[in-house]
Structure formats: structure tokens, C-alpha cells
């Protein structure tokens, strides 16, 4: 069980978020919906990157698979939401399982390259399979159940979905399985010596990350009423990786903070200048050169200093 203070803090955050629509700002509600979706996306990637130390450069693939699947099932095939969403998560997890099977045979940079290559394959399929995905026009006009058409209702739907998913990820990451992943990250060889099938553990983490990434994608596609091939492009994979890093790799909440900060920063930057890539590039340089453990790491560093003095 999580520490009581964590539970209370999480409950307060969820409660505050639930009160947000009362403030009456449509902009704030929409922005928060987006942030929650990205937070889940980043968190799903962190299972792989933070907990097992395997850097995936192709996580957008599962986001896109989840998003496209959910959107296609809802719109083209007229499935009800209660079936379309689980199907999307399942398919994203399944594809991640297959891709992961090949990727976990490699480690480090080779692993990253292979995940990237698979993701680009997914992108290529989304691009070229025009009849199903809409190709580079994107898949627009996603049909939502009437109940979710309202932006406030969709906000609550996202809040509940993301909260449940994050809770599930918390449990997964703090279970024996999650601790085993950390052991694999810290010392692959030693973990193997004590009887851990390290490759299978990494494979499982890959699949879990893919499935939750798919859920984030499904929420995203429904929120935007459309999926576009850019969502599968490698720059999207890079962006979510940056969210994870900005927040902090080795903490559970880090990616949530990273996603929120990065997305809000992007929205605000775009209001004033078309040069968001430059801003992002500079942020990245700061992370890489002086903040390798992210914002959470920075806070911890200050805390540590305070305690010592």
C-alpha cells in the first residue's frame, strides 16, 4: 500500500481537478484534459525507460495504434465505446508484445534504434493504408457517444480513465514485478543470477508500456475527434521521452510533472512565437547538460542540501 500521505495527496489532486470545470474556463478545462492524456502517455513510457532502463524511441507507435484503433472502431465500424476502448488498449498491448519480443533481444542503443524502426513502420502503415486510416489527411470526424460530446463531460471521463490508469500503473510499478524491473535496470547480470528471467521481465514491461500508451492514444483521438499521422511520427516519440526526462526518470510522479510542464510551456510559447522547436531544443540542452535527473531530481537535490545544513 502507498504511504498514507501519498494517498491523501493524490485524492486532493483528483478532487481539485474535479472542481476545475466549476471555474468556468473552457480553455483551462481543455488544457487540463490534454495534460492528463500526456501525463498518462509519459507515465506509460516511464515503465520502460525509468523502471527497466530501456530507452524506447518509438513509443508514439502504441499511442497511435490505440488512438487509431479506437477512432476507427467507433467511427467506421460503429462499435460502442465500452468495446472500442478496451479493444484499442488490447491491440496496442498486443502489438507492443510482438514488437517487444524482438526488441528485448537487444539492449541500450540497439534497442532504441529498433523501437524507432518499428515505430516508423507503424507510421508508414498509417500513412499508406489510406482506406482505413485516412492517410496523410488524417482520420477526422470521430464519432463519440452523445454523453461525451460535451467538453466538460469528456474532461470528467478523461479524469476518471487517467486516474484509474495511473493507479493501476502505481500498483504495477510498486509490485514485486516493478521492483524486479528496477533490479534488472540496476544490474542485469546480478538479477539474472538470482533467477530473474531478465529478458522476459523487460518484455513484460514493454507490453505494459505499450498497452497504457494505447489508452492514452485512445483518449487523445477521442478528445481531438481525429488521429493524424504526425501522432505516430518519431518526433512525437521524442517529445514524450523529453516529458519523462524533464520530470525525472527515477520517480513515479516525475513524468506527470514533465508532461504538464512541457505541454503548458508549448501552448504558451505557441501564443507568442512560431519557434517552439528552438525553445524545446534549449530545454533539452538544459536537461542533458545540467539536469539529467529532471525537475524531481532538482527538487530532491535542494531538499537534500537543506537537510544536511
Amino acid at each position, binding site marked *: 500500500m502507498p504511504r498514507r500521505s501519498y494517498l491523501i495527496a493524490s485524492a486532493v489532486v483528483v478532487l481539485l481537478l474535479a472542481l476545475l470545470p466549476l471555474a468556468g474556463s473552457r480553455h483551462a478545462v481543455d488544457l487540463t484534459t490534454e495534460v492528463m492524456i500526456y501525463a498518462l502517455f509519459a507515465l506509460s513510457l516511464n515503465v520502460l525507460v525509468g523502471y527497466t532502463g530501456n530507452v524506447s524511441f518509438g513509443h508514439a507507435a502504441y499511442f497511435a495504434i490505440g488512438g487509431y484503433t479506437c477512432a476507427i472502431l467507433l467511427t467506421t465500424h460503429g462499435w460502442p465505446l465500452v468495446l472500442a476502448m478496451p479493444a484499442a488498449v488490447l491491440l496496442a498491448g498486443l502489438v507492443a508484445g510482438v514488437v517487444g519480443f524482438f526488441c528485448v533481444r*537487444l539492449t*541500450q542503443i*540497439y534497442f532504441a534504434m*529498433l523501437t*524507432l524502426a518499428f515505430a516508423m513502420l507503424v507510421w*508508414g502503415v498509417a500513412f499508406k493504408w489510406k482506406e482505413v486510416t485516412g492517410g496523410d489527411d488524417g482520420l477526422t470526424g470521430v464519432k463519440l457517444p452523445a454523453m461525451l460530446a460535451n467538453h466538460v463531460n469528456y474532461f470528467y471521463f478523461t479524469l476518471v480513465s487517467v486516474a484509474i490508469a495511473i493507479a493501476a500503473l502505481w500498483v504495477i510499478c510498486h509490485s514485486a514485478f516493478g521492483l524486479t524491473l528496477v533490479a534488472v535496470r540496476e544490474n542485469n547480470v546480478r538479477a539474472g543470477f538470482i533467477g530473474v528471467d531478465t529478458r522476459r521481465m523487460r518484455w513484460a514491461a514493454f507490453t505494459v508500456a505499450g498497452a497504457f500508451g494505447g489508452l492514452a492514444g485512445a483518449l487523445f483521438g477521442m478528445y481531438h475527434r481525429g488521429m493524424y499521422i504526425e501522432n505516430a511520427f*518519431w518526433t512525437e516519440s521524442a517529445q514524450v521521452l523529453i516529458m519523462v526526462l524533464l520530470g525525472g526518470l527515477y520517480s513515479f510522479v516525475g513524468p506527470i510533472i514533465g508532461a504538464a510542464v512541457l505541454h503548458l510551456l508549448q501552448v504558451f510559447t505557441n501564443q507568442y512565437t512560431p519557434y517552439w522547436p528552438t525553445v524545446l531544443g534549449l530545454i*533539452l540542452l538544459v536537461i*542533458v*547538460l545540467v539536469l539529467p535527473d529532471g525537475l524531481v531530481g532538482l527538487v530532491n537535490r535542494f531538499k537534500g542540501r537543506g537537510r544536511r545544513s
Partner: protein
Amino acid sequence: MTTTMFTLNAFYGLALAMNMFIIASGLNLIFGVLRVINFAHGMFYMFGAYIIFTVTKSWGAPFFVGVLASAAGLAVIALVIERLLLRHLYGKEHLMQLLFTFAVVLLMSDAAKMIWGTDQYSVGYPAGLGGAVNLGFVVLPQYQLFLCVVGPLIAIAMWLLVDKTRAGRIVRAATQDREMLAALGVNVPMVYAAVFTIGSALAGVGGALAAPRVALVPGMDATIINECFIIVIIGGLGHMWGSFVGALAFGFVVQFGTVWAPNWQDVLPYLLMLAVLIVRPWGLFGQPESGR
């Protein structure tokens, strides 16, 4: 498919392969020595193409002066990046290096927009290479023929340089044991800087040589970097002849894919790569990683 059509397609595939090899070999060289996956390589390629455009179109210089200008321009950019920033990251995790090169991509893409705008440009064929050669049963364009000559020349030059010279021995030693090399009195940081510069200059040359074949638009970097990744993964990371073979496979698959499976030619290289990786996870010529 007639013999003529087949020859023509095989030839275009070969020309594409050779152009891709020039670019990918730089990426591969950098990875082989520095163990850094340079995401900015595609951006270097784009800058190479843009530089030759400016030098030939705006300044009216001959084509091959433009190629040299691209090479020199990228060499300078790469050297500055390496000396100023990248060298601080060698000891750090791969992830940090990867993201650093991605930051370079972001900054350079905006820089390109500021310098050249977002218009589409084209570069003409060099004087004397714009025509065609008639072989009797097939007519081949001269420029592509030229690429088919330059590609192998660069491959052979790199092979001689890396395998047959003292400088090459030092470079190979740097891939094996950096500390031992330093202990023997070699200035390893200089080796790294030189390799990064040369590898990046190859991207510049590749971009300059590709300029007459392709449209110069923002975003041309993003596709090329993925294609380079495919090529070096197929061949085996860090293996020069591997990327030569990978480039050939890529060129033929794309060219014949355009003929036999139009619409899907962009996906075929990925399928090829997957087929290779299922059989050989480290690529055709790659070795299993040592250590973890």
C-alpha cells in the same frame, strides 16, 4: 518487365543506394567510433542540400564548388557542436547523447527556417552531367551514372583510410579501448572530433549530391534520417561494408517497390529491415554487443 525496364530500375536503385550510402556511412562512422547515434545527421544532410543551393543558385558558383562548400560548411558546424557541447557528454548515458542530438535537430530546423524560409527549392544538374548515355538497349542519365561511380569511390577511400593508414588504425583503436589509446599517448578527444567532423561532412556531401535528385523542403531531414537508420541497422551498426550492403538492399527495394508495389514503397524498407533483424538481431555484418 522487359530487360530495358529492369536495367533502368536496377540502375536507378543503384544510384539511390550510392547516394544513401554516402550519407549513411557518415552516420555509421560516427556511431562506430563515438557510440553516439546522431539524430542530427538528417539535418546535416538537409543543410548540405541547402548550402549547395545557395552557393550555386544565389552565388552562381559551379556545382562541384557547391559540393565542397557543403562539405566544408558541415565540417565547421559539426566541429563547433562537438567541441562546444557534445564532448561533455561522452561519459554519460546513451539516452543523454541521443537527446542532445535531437536538441540539435530542433535548433537547426528553426535555424534553417530563418535562413531559407519554407519555400521549396531545386538544384540543377551540374554542367556536363545533365544528359544521358545511350547503351544501345537502354538510355541512362549521366548524373545517376556519376553517383554510381562516386559512391564506390567514397567506400573504397574510407576503407583505405580506416583499414590501411596509421590514422585509420588509431580510429579503429578508439572504437576498441579508448583509455588504453589515451595511455599510449594518442589525443583521443581529437580523434573523436575528427571523426565527428568527417562523418558530418559526409552528410553534407550526400545532401549536396542528392540536391539535383530531390526537392529541397523543410522536413526532408526527417525521412532521410530514418532511411539511414534502416540502412545501418540492416548492415550492422558500425560496420562500413555492412552499410554499403544495406544501402544497396535499400536502394533496390525502394526502386523495385515503386514499380511493383506503388504506394507501399515507403513501408517496404522497414519490412526488409524486420526480416533481417528476425534472422540476425545485430544486422547482416554486426556483432553481438559485448558487456551487458
